[in-house]
């Protein structure tokens, strides 16, 4: 598909008080989307420009146009793209990163999954946070499920598998210690209920929350390991696939699809898309967020 944004909304003096951006950034935005599926909305384009600026400084490139050549023509373009993706996704993780995703989970998805499982004897939900980094996402999910278990999910069992490629991230995640920045979206209600004060003004996730999450080091490209992650109701994989090339990305997405139960859901980051890499998933719109659905066996509509 041809880039279309400029047609729907060309640079506007109203939306952007700063000086107009070099049009090259629109090209870079399209390139980033094409290789990673990450879409930088226009109001965040200056962040992309900042990221490019830092890279340009490192490389000593003189203009955005010159940097564009690094991203495209230069023999090191794959490496440079990866560096840029690092720049723009850095510092993105925090607890309760996407309220729209949490709402969709609580209000739409959990009631639906429960209805699907009414006939099962053991009431159980399995969730996988793939590429969990330092644990923000799986702990958020655990807290949300604990909240729900006081109501409609009473008596249900949960298992949250959290995996990451990076050993150090996994160790940090296990400790469950978070500072102000990681907690910027966490309400006082959740802070009081699910954390205990720790040193240096940090908060530590309570033991009951930790008990719901199992952390492991897993390489998503390790096909044999991926086979052991079966029977998931939900898979979250945020800003991880962006680093894979097209072929490996397709393969990993295929694993996620196979590991999901029929009727299960797959979530990416809020501005991330599957592109056209998998046509078995259905793209589903929830209020303010999108997810991907593995159609149920009955073929019934969601």
């Amino acid at each position, binding site marked *: *598909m041809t880039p*279309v*944004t400029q*047609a*729907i*909304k*060309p*640079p*506007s003096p*109203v*939306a952007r008080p700063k000086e107009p951006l070099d049009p090259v950034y629109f090209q870079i935005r399209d390139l980033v*989307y094409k290789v990673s*599926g990450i*879409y930088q*909305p*226009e*109001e965040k384009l200056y962040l992309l420009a900042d990221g490019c600026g830092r890279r340009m400084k490192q490389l000593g490139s003189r203009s955005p146009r010159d940097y564009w050549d690094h991203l495209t023509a230069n023999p090191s373009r794959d490496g440079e793209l990866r560096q840029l993706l690092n720049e723009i996704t850095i510092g993105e993780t925090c607890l309760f990163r996407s309220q729209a995703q949490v*709402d*969709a989970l609580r*209000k*739409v998805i959990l009631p639906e999954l429960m209805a699907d499982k009414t006939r099962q004897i053991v009431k159980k939900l399995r969730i996988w946070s793939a590429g969990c980094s330092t644990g923000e996402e799986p702990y958020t999910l655990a807290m949300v499920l604990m909240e729900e278990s006081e109501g409609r999910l009473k008596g249900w069992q949960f298992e949250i598998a959290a995996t990451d490629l990076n050993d150090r991230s996994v160790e940090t995640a296990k400790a469950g210690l978070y500072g102000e920045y990681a907690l910027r979206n966490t309400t006082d209600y959740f802070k009081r209920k699910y954390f205990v004060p720790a040193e240096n003004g940090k908060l530590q996730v309570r033991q009951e929350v930790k008990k719901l999450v199992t952390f492991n080091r897993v390489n998503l490209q390790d096909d044999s390991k991926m086979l052991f992650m079966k029977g998931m109701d939900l898979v979250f994989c945020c800003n991880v696939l962006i680093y894979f090339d097209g072929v490996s990305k397709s393969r990993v997405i295929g694993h996620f699809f196979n590991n999901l139960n029929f009727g299960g859901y797959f979530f990416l980051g809020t*501005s991330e*898309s*599957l*592109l*056209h890499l998998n046509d078995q998933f*259905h*793209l*589903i*719109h*929830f*209020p*303010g967020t*999108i997810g991907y*659905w593995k159609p149920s066996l009955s073929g019934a*509509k*969601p």
Partner: protein
Amino acid sequence: MTASVAENIRERVARIETTPAIPAVLVPLLKVLNRPAEDVDINEVVRLVSYDNSIAAQCMRMASSPLFGLAQQPKSISSAVVSLGLHRVESILLTCCMGHAFPMKSWPLEPAAFWRHSLGCAMVCRRFSEQIGSPETEKAYTAGLLHDIGIMANCVAFPGEFALVVQRAREAQQPLFDAELSVMGFTHCETGQVLAEQWGLAPEIFQVIAFHHDVDHASAPRGLVAIVHLSDLLCRMRDLGYGYYECSKVDMIADPAWAILKQEYPELERIDLARFTFELDEAVAEISEMVRMVLGSSAS
């Protein structure tokens, strides 16, 4: 719906009064919009835009919004027609007129939310039809803008009943359409049809108003109804709904409207829905800005 209910709707909608300056422009404008493009006289449109000074001034301001495509405010109406094209100027005039057509005091639904949805839907319809290669992009805009006129009719002609509908929809976080059915027994699709007849709207716009919640029953060609149906769903999922959280989910590709549209426009399959959605988000701020402009002081 019984005959007496239908009669009641007809009677109450017939009593809706529009603000005085509007029919003088709106009624002839709707006639112009019904005409095939080659029969439309540019001077006629320019005359309609110029009829009322405040409407003309507002149209010129709207023309300079990024949503309509000009970087600067045009110097004259004729120059707006030259740079934007006749159809787009008609769209602007229609948007402007509709924003002033009814008194908006004491609506049960927040007028700004309603207009954000209507204008948002119009924009998405136009964008959608561009992407699937439909030649009638401005018609899609008009259809999106007018698809919910029945909700305006409900606000004005059935204020008490519709207030209960809105309350029910908010509490149950359900679609307005469902709440209308359970509270009133009829919906904005019925009241909209009556209004569409009164205004003499084009048959395909009538189809959109009557069947955007029930695409299967629209009469062929159903492509336009399908575009509006899908755009409406998308807007309600992306911060361009009626101003409350609607607890639902949408599988656009499994929707019957998708299949209908695909028959007419095979290009549909190539659409990147995720990106389309992200781009829609970018337009939300601009749409809100335009709603403020259109409503001005007429919404409280």
